[in-house]
């Protein structure tokens, strides 16, 4: 099944080359790139019948076989639903974004970030290996950072981008810790094997830790309370980005993770309490906070928080009905929330403001926008016959069953909170539709805003139409993607029939109550808003975040200032102390260095002479007071070592060291003019004593280490024997040293040359920056 890696790679390549395209085709780049997710959408869609029959597609290549890490992708019902959302809504967002961005904006950079983000998201939902999933997960954090901070000249954008990165990045690290735990417990990070070992995992003592770590990752990504703080600040992104990140992509990655891990970690009381509890609290908190906002995008931001809470709560309950509802609502929320974001983007684009206080009665000039946003808002409110109504009915039913199944009267909280959240949702949905487009009020804008061109208006209308279609014919979406998706989570057919009309039953009564209550509250909106704004003393997680970030900066500054004195000798002392500590700890761990088998050859006179020369060079450094002489003395030590290598028949090392010594002397001479003059510094006695201690100590430590290595019987080294025996057989080379460097330990060399390249870049930048500073 090559489509899976190809989809990720092609999106990534498109992202990397987008700036190049932009140079050739100009601002058409967005529309052209929109074809790519469209093609992928169609390719994925063609797999629907097979996946619906329960077939899963696989593709894998080994990566780090020792650790069980593979480039392994798989596509089941759940992955397919998310892949369709990512590519489908991605197509519309790219098309919309091409018109949204002004001609002066850098389209190349924007679409590059978008495509990289899309590649990362596709990777997250199709990865079949936890390590690979984690990598793509981090890639979404990183690319969303770039997207949110796209207008990087604005303070608020940078603040929002950093906040999103820190919060979701922290979650990513938790996930890494979680997957390491999983690997320790099960010895595998392959999702299929993890699924097979889920019973062992749940019975293990580390289960609560694993669960909490994975949930932290999902909750930070999906903006669940109290980690919802990054999402409103992420609204600083251009609106197409918000429409994508906060409907179908970024935040849905957390949903995907919870759904994906629920057969592995779910089904316990702890899972239901944590996931269900956090979800339902987020639902109420988000809808309440949405009411407090006046910025349209902020309303949508908190609305996203609250709707995600709804889905998370459903996944927490974990019954077949709840999971099906969760999957269905994931689809529905992506559709109507993307439409709403796009609509708000249009309002912002055409009127120049997003402040609800200043807007009203826009339907006269913007009937199409009103239509698109009206459809989407009614779906969000859960009004029949829209898709949001169907999934919300299922939500109510699941909540009622959950409360029946609960042992205590606390179970009653589920439906109560569900209804409370839904009523508040209903009210702000009307603010987004009725008040914005039909209510009178708000100061008159200079000119009547009109509908924009098709590039902006077509995508939200398509999505609004889909919201209606999925509501009228829920079975259509159900059979194709929703039920296979739920089946993938549940491990079997959920046995649920999606329908608009279930007859008169308790959920329908709750829905009617929500609509009636919402209408009454909306009529008394000024009173409601006064009450909402009047609630004092809410816990402000933003203050905690700001305090933590400030404290982090201050304390790292203190540590840095203590260590980074600007004197090379101090850094050197730090290194030596650390080195000494490692040696002592290491020696203690293996029970001391044994010198019993020491079998030393007699020292010949010329070896002694060379040693004395090297020693003399080193000692001379202590008393020399000019730099030139010091360089010569250092060179003396170096060349004496070269002679040693020659004597001991190590031509490789001798040759390398000889050239290194020559080049170093020349480099130091070149660096001469950049260095300040040598000064006499007075070192205080305690510091001098410490220096003496560490230098004598590390000298002794190295000597002991060398003697210890010599005492180790040469024939017993497994590694040496392996390399000597296999160098010719496995790598086709007789020079074992070189074969080790480029073949057996090629990965190390790879790292070393990377460091070397970075060092060269560092020198380049430091010298050029300094030159530029001097010019100013």
């Amino acid at each position, binding site marked *: 099944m090559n489509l899976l890696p190809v989809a990720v790679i092609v999106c990534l390549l498109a992202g990397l080359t987008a700036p190049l395209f932009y140079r050739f085709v100009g601002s058409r780049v967005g529309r052209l790139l929109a074809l790519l997710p469209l093609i992928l959408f169609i390719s994925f869609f063609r797999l629907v019948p097979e996946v619906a029959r329960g077939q899963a597609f696989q593709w894998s290549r080994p990566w780090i076989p020792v650790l069980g890490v593979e480039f392994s992708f798989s596509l089941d019902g759940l992955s397919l639903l998310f892949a369709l959302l990512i590519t489908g809504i991605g197509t519309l967002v790219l098309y919309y974004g091409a018109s949204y961005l002004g001609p002066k904006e850098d389209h190349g950079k924007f679409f590059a970030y978008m495509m990289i983000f899309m590649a990362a998201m596709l990777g997250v939902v199709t990865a079949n290996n936890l390590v690979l999933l984690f990598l793509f997960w981090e890639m979404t954090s990183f690319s969303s950072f770039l997207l949110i901070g796209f207008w990087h000249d604005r303070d608020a954008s940078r603040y929002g981008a950093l906040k999103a990165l820190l919060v979701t990045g922290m979650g990513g690290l938790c996930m890494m810790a979680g997957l390491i735990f999983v690997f320790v417990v099960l010895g595998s990070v392959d999702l299929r094997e993890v699924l097979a070992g889920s019973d062992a995992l749940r019975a293990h003592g580390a289960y609560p830790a694993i669960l909490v770590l994975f949930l932290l990752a999902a909750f930070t990504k999906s903006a669940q309370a109290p980690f919802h703080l990054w999402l409103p600040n992420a609204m600083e992104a251009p609106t197409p980005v918000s429409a994508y990140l906060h409907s179908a992509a970024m935040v849905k990655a957390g949903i995907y993770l919870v759904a994906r891990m629920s057969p592995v970690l779910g089904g316990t009381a702890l899972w239901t309490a944590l996931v269900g509890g956090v979800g339902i609290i987020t639902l109420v908190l988000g809808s309440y906070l949405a009411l407090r906002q006046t910025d349209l995008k902020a309303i949508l931001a908190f609305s996203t928080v609250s709707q995600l809470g709804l889905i998370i709560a459903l996944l927490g309950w974990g019954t077949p009905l709840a999971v099906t509802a969760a999957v269905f609502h994931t689809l529905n929320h992506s559709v109507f929330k993307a439409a709403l974001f796009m609509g708000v983007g249009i309002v912002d684009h055409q009127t120049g403001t997003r402040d609800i206080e200043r807007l009203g009665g826009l339907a006269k000039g913007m009937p199409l926008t009103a239509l698109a946003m009206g459809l989407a808002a009614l779906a969000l409110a859960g009004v029949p016959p829209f898709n949001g109504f169907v999934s919300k009915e299922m939500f109510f039913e699941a909540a009622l069953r959950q409360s029946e199944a609960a042992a205590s009267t606390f179970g009653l909280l589920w439906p109560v909170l569900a209804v409370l959240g839904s009523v508040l949702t209903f009210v702000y949905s009307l603010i987004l539709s009725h008040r914005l487009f039909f209510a009178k009020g708000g100061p008159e804008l200079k000119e009547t805003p009109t509908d924009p061109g098709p590039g902006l208006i077509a995508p939200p209308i398509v999505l609004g139409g889909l919201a209606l279609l999925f509501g009228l014919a829920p079975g259509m979406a159900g059979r194709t993607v929703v039920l296979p998706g739920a089946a993938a989570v549940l491990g079997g057919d959920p046995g649920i029939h999606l329908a608009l009309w279930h007859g008169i039953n308790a959920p329908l009564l709750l829905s009617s109550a929500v609509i009636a209550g919402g209408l009454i509250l909306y009529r008394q909106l000024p009173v409601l808003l006064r009450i909402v704004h009047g609630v004092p003393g809410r816990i402000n997680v933003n203050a905690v975040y700001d305090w933590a970030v400030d404290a982090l900066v201050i304390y790292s500054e203190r540590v840095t200032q203590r260590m980074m004195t600007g004197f090379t000798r101090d850094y050197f002392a730090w290194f030596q102390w650390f080195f000494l500590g490692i040696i002592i700890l290491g020696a203690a761990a293996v029970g001391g260095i044994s010198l019993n088998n020491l079998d030393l050859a007699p020292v010949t006179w010329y070896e002694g002479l060379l040693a004395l020369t090297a020693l003399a060079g080193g000692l001379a450094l202590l008393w020399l007071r000019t730099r030139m002489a010091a360089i010569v003395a250092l060179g003396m030590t170096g060349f004496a070592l070269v002679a040693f290598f020659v004597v001991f028949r190590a031509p490789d090392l001798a040759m390398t060291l000889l050239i290194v010594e020559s080049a170093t002397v020349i480099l130091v001479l070149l660096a001469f003019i950049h260095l300040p003059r040598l000064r006499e510094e007075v070192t205080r006695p305690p510091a001098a004593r410490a220096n003496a201690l560490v230098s004598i100590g590390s000298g002794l430590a190295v000597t002991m280490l060398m003697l210890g290595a010599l005492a180790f019987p040469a024939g017993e080294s497994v590694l040496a024997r392996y390399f000597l025996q296999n160098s010719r057989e496995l790598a086709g080379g007789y020079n074992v040293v070189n074969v080790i460097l480029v073949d057996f330990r090629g990965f190390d060399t790879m790292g070393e040359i990377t460091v070397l390249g970075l060092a060269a870049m560092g020198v380049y930048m430091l010298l050029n920056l300094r030159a530029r500073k*001097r010019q100013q």
Partner: protein
Amino acid sequence: MNSIILQTVARVALYVLLILAAFLLFAGHNAPGGGFIAGLLAAAAFILQMLAFDLEYVAKLFPVNPLGVVATGLILAAGVGFVPMLLGYPFLTSAFTTITVPIIGRGELTSVFFFDLGVFFVVVGAMMTVIKEMASDNSYHSRVDEMREVVKEDSELWKR
């Protein structure tokens, strides 16, 4: 520095050193040598030119951006690692075969040679970057006098 002897020697030595570097690069798999030494030697050959002539002369001999050479080397080395992955083997798996070339004779052709070539490029590029940037810092000429002064003061300090 403007020594005619040094310049004459350096001119010839450049080719000798570069040929030696190439030899070390190719020989590395079976005899002392390898990308790292070869790279250092090649860079040293250019450093010698800089000492004998000046930076402009080196720039003419080495007319590419040294950081670009570093990047080429890194991409080459990483590319050698990724090719086996496309064929379904782990990262950096090597392959070799024995071939017989007329005149030169039997030899091994191994995929890690290209990895070694990458190492070579990175070393040469990094060294050349450092040398070029240090020597071409635009305050270089203005600070040469200052440097002379420092050296003079140092030597006075030395006499005391």
